[in-house]
């Protein structure tokens, strides 16, 4: 059964049920009230007549009955019966059978004088002096008729309510399924491999719009990841190719070599190339982990300034050996930061190594920690050749190595890893012109826990 129909039927059924409840309530109440009225009237009339008999005797009662018949309500049924059942006074067409007489209130079927057929009535039977009976009551025909009318109109209104409910259901179902249908259609097209589709938004900001927005945001992220993944697999296949073939060549040459010294040299080269392959693979793994935001459970407080100073101290001798002075400039006081100390150390060491590798010729490398509003900036600046503005985005990409002839393996992953670690901390890695040279800035929110994701 299609959802639309189900929603319509459900709405119709609910309308029917609630109407049924209201109508049932009205029915029961009116029924009870009509009966209560009848009982009261019958009891009152019987009491009046009995009182008349008690105070005025037979003569007064005869008069009262005659009056009631002559001037009273035409629905009134009244009769004074002799002990043998004969009607002494009253308006019954025929006297009820004697054995059915018993004191108390009861329903009966009576025919009044001058009426064509017997009708239902409510009567009170009272036993009087000397075996005489007083039968006093009312026909209930009028009440019955009213109830029948009421029942008919109630039934009619029930049918109308049911139909209206069904109609409302259809309208509602149509609305809901149209909104959901838009989303489903997009999902269908996406399943058919068109990831560029987006859910159209009505702009009202209702729940359907929010659902659509969330789906769109999800699709944006999936698209980005898919693109990256595609690029990654392509580059991985490409970049693993050259060390793998070097490895193969070295192994082959080692197997052929006769001279033990030469063979040892070649085997050393085999190990170095294998290590290079492993390094590429483990860096790629590290990037994927950071992008997947794992590792946040290992976040802790530490001083970013202290970490930067420590790393600069670690790399200072290496920079000096390559002919560059590595200088550190810290913010005033400690810079407490909540993050992954080991991964940030790795990211910063990649940036510093990059500066040393490509910027040493410029003679100076600066490492700075700067507080900037709600951000902490860690800047690594060199005076090397820098990266042209048009190629900076490439440099941040995995395997986005700018000079493909360069053979220091894994170097193409350093910036990408640093960027993914910045992402893990809700931060960003920005490449800029140091005029001359490269200015690499890691922008981190002062407290990444407060950043909405």
């Amino acid at each position, binding site marked *: 059964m299609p959802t639309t129909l189900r929603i319509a039927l459900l709405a119709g059924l609910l309308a029917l049920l609630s109407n049924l409840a209201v109508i049932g309530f009205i029915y029961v109440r009116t029924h009870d009230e009509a009966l209560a009225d009848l009982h009261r009237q019958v009891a009152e009339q019987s009491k009046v007549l009995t009182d008349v008999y008690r105070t005025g005797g037979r003569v007064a009662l005869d008069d009262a009955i005659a009056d009631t018949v002559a001037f009273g309500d035409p629905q009134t049924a009244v009769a004074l019966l002799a002990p043998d059942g004969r009607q002494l006074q009253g308006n019954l067409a025929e006297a009820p059978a004697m054995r059915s007489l018993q004191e108390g209130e009861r329903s009966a079927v009576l025919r009044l004088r001058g009426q064509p057929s017997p009708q239902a009535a409510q009567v009170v039977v009272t036993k009087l002096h000397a075996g005489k009976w007083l039968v006093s009551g009312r026909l209930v025909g009028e009440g019955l008729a009213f109830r029948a009318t009421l029942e008919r109109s109630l039934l009619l209104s029930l049918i109308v309510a049911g139909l209206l409910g069904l109609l409302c259901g259809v309208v509602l179902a149509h609305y809901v399924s149209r909104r959901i249908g838009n989303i489903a259609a997009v999902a269908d097209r996406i399943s058919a491999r068109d990831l560029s589709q987006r859910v159209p938004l009505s702009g009202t900001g209702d729940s359907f719009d929010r659902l659509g927005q969330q789906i769109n945001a999800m699709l944006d992220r999936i698209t980005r990841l898919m693109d990256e993944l595609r690029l990654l697999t392509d580059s991985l296949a490409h970049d693993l190719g050259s060390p793998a073939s070097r490895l193969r060549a070295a192994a082959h040459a080692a197997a052929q070599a006769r001279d033990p010294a030469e063979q040892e040299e070649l085997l050393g080269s085999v190990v170095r190339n294998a290590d290079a392959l*492993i390094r590429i693979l*483990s860096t790629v793994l*590290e990037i994927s*982990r950071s992008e997947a935001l794992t590792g946040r459970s*290992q976040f802790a407080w530490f001083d970013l300034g202290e970490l930067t100073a420590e790393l600069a*101290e670690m790399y200072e001798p290496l920079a000096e050996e390559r002919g560059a002075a590595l200088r550190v400039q810290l913010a005033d006081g400690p810079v407490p930061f909540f993050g992954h100390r*080991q991964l940030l*150390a*790795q990211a910063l060491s990649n940036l510093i190594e990059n500066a040393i590798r490509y910027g040493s010729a410029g003679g100076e490398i600066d490492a700075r920690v700067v507080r900037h509003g709600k951000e902490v900036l860690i800047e690594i600046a060199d005076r090397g050749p820098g990266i042209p503005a048009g190629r900076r985005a490439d440099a941040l990409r995995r395997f986005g190595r700018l000079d493909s002839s360069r053979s220091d393996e894994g170097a193409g992953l350093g910036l990408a890893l640093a960027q993914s670690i910045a992402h893990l901390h809700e931060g960003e890695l920005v490449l800029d012109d140091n005029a001359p040279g490269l200015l690499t800035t890691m922008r981190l929110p002062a407290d990444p826990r407060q950043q909405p994701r």
Partner: protein
Amino acid sequence: MGRKILLVEDDRETANYLAKGLTQEGHSVEQAANGQDGLFRATGGTFDLVILDRMLPVLDGLSVLRALRAARIETPVLILSALASVGDRIEGLECGSDDYLVKPFSFAELNARVNALIRRREARVDPAQHRLTIGDLEIDPLARAVKRAGKKLDLKPREYLLLEFFARNEGRVVTRTMLLEQVWDYHFDPGTNVIDVHVSRLRRKLEDGFEKPLLHTVRGAGYMLAA
């Protein structure tokens, strides 16, 4: 100086290769091929060291480690793992292991770490109380002062830490990654020879003006401080 080592490794080839190498180094090696068996042996026997693979059938390495530590068995544990990310290493160390080595590794690297762990277990006296002497080199850990042949050497704080680590592993090979982990407390692989530069600076301060070398390069493995 043979020691009893329990090797818990499910890959038969790796296990045999390691067992052979460790036996050649003079240790006696007992093997277990899954986590449950490994835990059983480690709790039952007395070992100087447990080498524990992280991904094991039946019961994984970290669970074995947690169970051992929960049972108050303080035998040093060296974890071997193909899980190389920094987060994985930290997790392994936080579970109570004494060292964490990422696969693939050279046997020299493993051997250096095994010796360092065994040595650390034996040197349980408070290290700061004792002067370290290697040949004519004297180190006073309390004052952080270093003398060679009676002459005071002027070392930077990190150079001192580097030297103290070498001295505590006197006569044993120390690898570059061990230095990075133990002296700097970083758990990534640097892409440069940054550690070598520090070691050669320290070497210059130790050896310049003296005849006898102290800090030796061990080819294909690392460095060793020995008189």
